[in-house]
């Protein structure tokens, strides 16, 4: 069951974003920014977490989930450390995603050469 929920929840988010790509002049970079920021805001409004509890990876894998993660991180850090936590939480929570992307991409740049689009 959780696979089905993950499939269709994730799919629906992607299908909705396709409207943005096809019918507005928003470039993909801006769409990614928009997703992360709205995920964080939805997280803060206590909307995203219940959705994620239902959809599992269907909510955590899209970049909106990344935004929610940022919010969760900053909230936790503020709870624990107070004011200075505002400056800690975001990077702590997103550490795995960003580090993995940077490190593996760096390895990829050593291994692969640019290729023509097919």
């Amino acid at each position: 069951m959780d696979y089905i929920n993950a499939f269709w929840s994730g799919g629906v988010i992607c299908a909705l974003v396709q409207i943005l790509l096809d019918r507005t002049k928003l470039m993909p970079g801006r769409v990614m920014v928009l997703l992360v920021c709205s995920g964080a805001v939805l997280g803060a409004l206590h909307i995203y977490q219940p959705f994620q509890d239902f959809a599992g990876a269907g909510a955590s894998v899209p970049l909106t989930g990344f935004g929610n993660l940022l919010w969760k991180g900053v909230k936790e850090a503020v709870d624990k450390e107070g004011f200075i936590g505002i400056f800690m939480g975001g990077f702590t929570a997103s550490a795995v995603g960003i580090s993995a992307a940077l490190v593996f991409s760096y390895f990829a740049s050593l291994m692969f050469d640019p290729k023509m689009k097919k």
Partner: protein
Amino acid sequence: MTKGLQSIAFEKSPYLVSSASVVGKKEGEGPLGKMFDMVEKEDLFGENTWEEAESTMQKEACLLAMGKAHVEPKDVRYLFGGDLLRQGVATSMGVSELNIPLFGLFGACSTSGEALALASMSVAAGYGEYMLAVTSSHFGSAEKEFRFPLGYANQRPLSAQWTVTGSGAFLVGTKRSHVRITGVTVGKIVDYGLKDSQNMGACMAPAACDTIIRNLEDFERTAQDYNRIVTGDLGYVGQSILFDLMRGKGYDIKKNHMDCGMTIFDQISQDTHAGGSGCGCAATTLSAYILPKLDRGEWKRVLFVPTGALMSTVSYNEGASVPGIAHGIVLEHC
């Protein structure tokens, strides 16, 4: 001598002595594939980067064009060249070994027209026996410069055009051949305020319209006086807009219009969306497809109108519009 508002009619028309085209793999697989002088299966052209590959194409095209006419680089008085890269480095790096005095040009995808106009003017004015005009573009270097890294996962809109990997070189001179440049119409920048860099056909169509009408009026000709009116890279979207704009001004060019961007690729099987583009698009199509027809006398007179969208990534990010420019070159069989 000057003609009308923006044109020149040569008293002693220079000849298009020879030309050459060098293209990449995808272009070689297209409808014109067999007509190009050189098709390289490896898009890096044996070099290390896209930029070096583009320079190599230019050099090869120049050498081939000169070789066909048995002309040595030292016999060429001036070289007029350009490309799409920042500061025109593909040209600077590509032709430096030839040791021909150089004018580096930028007119976006209209550069082949600009180069041919200046080369033919210089020959007609008697400033030299031979001039060389060359332009190039490369899909890899252009995507990198104007859009995204090649591995980036984006979907191209249907109005987007595919930058041609190719270079065309033209030797203009006093030596007799079967094609002459009898006149040029230098175009103005025309800006209809469009800001969509993914729809360059629509940005350039008004400029093409302006230059074509200017040419017809300056030379007191009708569209039917040309066997073909050939635009550079308006693509499918730009062509239909050009027809509408021309009709609005009372001209009908539907029957004898041709667009290099629509000719060089097969839209359906090659999935290039609105057509080809880039400095190399008009130049290679002119060399491989149009000039042979003029040479054989199949076509008697052609108006060649390469079109350019004038933009940089900076101007685009700062929200500036994308104005167009187009230059008209009158080619005649003789």
